[in-house]
């Protein structure tokens, strides 16, 4: 592939801008729901620690939301600027789905976010809580529509393709609730919740480790660990169901995930290796016999298809998918291990004062983002070389725009996003460094502490 090939540049730009963008919704979806829970606890118990936690994280939420909005507008225009042939052909189907996302979610989030951030003195407590809940619901509605649209591109149905190459809808229910959509939706929402939990938990662990803001830190750390205990194992289960669904509808993607080239019974699980697209084999593979068959077909001798089943021009690039998948699963397993450790420490009443565990959770703070990115790499690269699976090729989808302007815009996005992301991260870290505005006391949640901690506020 030539470096200045317009298709390659357009793909690179889309990959870059959407990877950048997804970091924000992944965090926004989780944190909005969590803030709703925190505010509910505050209203219910009247404990000011919840208010201080809310007020601290709502600021981080605002920075994050702002970056999500501006990077999202870029995407909604990029379908047209860079993928106009795709837009022309699929507009009848994807247009209404995106239109519903704007009308049911974006306006809702944007309007009530204003009240959530700036409305403290303007509306009552319950109305404010209502605004938080509405924003949280808005993020989920948004995820619903955009994941439905993406899933339709993965598992298209409910349409006919006209002689002009244009897609016409025949059944909206089949389009919206296409086969991979329910799995992708649940998997992504759980991923967003876990991502948030590990960020919040990491920050809570940092305060506990530094013995600062201990009351608030226990709320953050404790709630995050509840998520790690329950949602992390559930996510493995959701992921497995999603994988089986992919095996049914997009088997080539699964073959690439497994690094499997020959169709075989009793296929081994390749733990590591290097899938080589040209040699049509996975080099240096470390295998566990028959395990792949067992995972995918729930039978030791089940048949698993290899990539050679498809002509080479229809195969996705296996190495990217193989490795992305392993990173995602690896992080998922680390999250489950965190949950197990949290249960053990909780039972031994050492959850809030085990130093190595605090360090461990701090190290895992960004892990969710990496898992979300690699997970999306698996699903998006795994759809290649198609943009709409088996129906429309990525190479036939680009706009009649030369490589010059695309290279220019790609460079500009790269530069601007680096500055914005750098600044945004810096301000979020500053907010974390400052911590919640809360008189220090350890009155909340003494469970798990052997003796009351000596609280030293170093801020």
């Amino acid at each position, binding site marked *: 592939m030539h470096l200045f090939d317009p298709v390659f540049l357009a793909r690179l730009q889309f990959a870059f801008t959407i990877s950048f963008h997804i970091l924000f919704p992944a965090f926004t979806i989780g944190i909005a729901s969590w803030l709703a829970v925190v505010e509910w606890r505050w209203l219910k118990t009247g404990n000011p620690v919840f208010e201080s936690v809310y007020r601290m994280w709502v600021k981080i939420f*605002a920075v994050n939301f702002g970056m999500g909005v*501006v990077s999202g507008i870029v995407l909604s225009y990029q379908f047209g600027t860079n993928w106009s042939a795709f837009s022309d052909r699929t507009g009848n189907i994807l*247009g209404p789905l995106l239109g519903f996302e704007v009308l049911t979610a974006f*306006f809702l989030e944007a309007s009530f976010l204003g009240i959530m951030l700036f409305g403290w003195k303007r509306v009552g407590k319950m109305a404010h809580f209502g605004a938080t809940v509405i924003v949280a619901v808005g993020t989920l509605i948004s995820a619903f529509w955009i994941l439905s649209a993406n899933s339709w591109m993965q598992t298209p149905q409910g349409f006919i393709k006209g002689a002009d190459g244009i897609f016409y809808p025949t059944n909206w229910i089949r389009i919206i609730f296409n086969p991979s959509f329910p799995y992708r939706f649940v998997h992504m929402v759980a991923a967003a919740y876990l991502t948030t939990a590990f960020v919040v938990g990491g920050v809570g662990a940092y305060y506990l480790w530094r013995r600062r803001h201990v009351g608030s830190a226990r709320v953050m750390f404790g709630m995050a660990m509840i998520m790690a205990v329950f949602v992390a194992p559930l996510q493995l289960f959701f992921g497995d169901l999603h994988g089986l669904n992919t095996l049914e509808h997009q088997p080539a993607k699964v073959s690439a995930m497994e690094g499997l080239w020959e169709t075989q019974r009793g296929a081994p699980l390749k733990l590591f290796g290097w899938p080589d697209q040209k040699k049509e084999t996975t080099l240096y593979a470390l295998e566990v016999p028959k395990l792949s068959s067992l995972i995918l077909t729930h039978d030791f001798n089940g048949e698993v298809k290899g990539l050679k089943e498809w002509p080479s021009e229809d195969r996705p690039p296996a190495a990217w998918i193989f490795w992305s998948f392993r990173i995602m699963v690896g992080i998922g397993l680390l999250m489950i291990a965190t949950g197990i450790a949290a249960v053990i420490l909780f039972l031994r009443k050492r959850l809030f004062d085990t130093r190595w565990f605090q360090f461990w959770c701090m190290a895992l703070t960004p892990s969710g983002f990496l898992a979300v990115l690699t997970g999306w790499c698996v699903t998006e690269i795994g759809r290649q070389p198609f943009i709409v699976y088996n129906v429309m090729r990525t190479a036939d989808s680009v706009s009649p725009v030369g490589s010059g302007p695309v290279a220019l815009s790609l460079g500009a996005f790269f530069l601007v996003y680096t500055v914005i992301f750098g600044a945004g991260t810096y301000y979020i870290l500053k907010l974390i460094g400052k911590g919640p505005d809360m008189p220090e006391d350890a009155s909340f949640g003494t469970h798990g502490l052997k003796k009351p901690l000596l609280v030293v506020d170093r801020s």
Partner: protein
Amino acid sequence: MFSFENILDLPIIWYALIGTAVFLYVLLDGFDLGVGILFPFAPSDQSRDRIMNSIAPFWDGNETWLVLGGGGLFAAFPLAYAVLMPAFYLPIIFMLLGLIFRGVAFEFRFKAFGWSRKAWNYAFHLGSLTAAFMQGVVLGTFVQGIAVEGRRFAGGALDWVSPFALMTGAALVFGYALLGATWIIMKTDGETQEWARNYAGSICVCVALFMALVTLSTPLINNDIKTLWFSLPNFFYLSPLPLLAFGMFLLLWKDLRRKKECRPFFLSIGIFLMNYLGLGISLWPWIVPFRFTLWEAAAAPQSQSLLLAGTLFLLPMVLGYTAYSFYTFRGKASPEGYY
């Protein structure tokens, strides 16, 4: 599959809906982009904080209308979306980059101090300026018409660089500045309001000049537009538009001297409306000017029907809670930080 095709002229309804969405965008983001354009000229830092606070709860909702405009075009007229977006490639990219800088500046500048706060002030200003100018350029390029072959844009990457488009770009910058200045008059008092009132006066004159320039040069670009406006009896039917606009300018000028607080903003909106209607009349029924009409570019009737059914129910709700948000933050804005 349900479809309203047999009972309604769907493309016309969608043309009107998207036209309304774009107009609401122009008004709503217009005033907050305008505030950004005027930002560095404000009399003091405190004044800057204050005008920033006057738009902070709204900008996000305002920009959502831009997403609705783009998304709506994609949904209801995919062919137009697919032809126009590549034609405006660079102006749209520049606009998006401008919107990014000004959007994050809302959050970042309240957390920054010293030189970095100054830097975000300028990011806010230059981002707003770029976005406004590029939107004007897109408008000018749109009015002039673009090169199309089959169902694809067939022109070059720099086709948008033309005297007319650059002029409409500048015109929109001043137009937004007028909306911004009159918004500030309405939402502040004291020195900030005084400053905005002074600026609004001179901007008002500039806008009038630009309007005259654009109005007179548009018929020169295209013969059809010229015949539409200057043939009889059309000339008489259409003359109320420019006359009303002229009347509103006079009233605005008077209001500024009489120190009215709210009406100038609504008069500025009225002036925008007159221009917008004039533009709509000039370009009817083109959606890709002089190449595809709105019927030729329409999405499948079942697609337009589905989204219409949703919109009839959802748009009033959106308007309702947008109004609620403006009502919640009514009155004068304070210079203090939020939350």
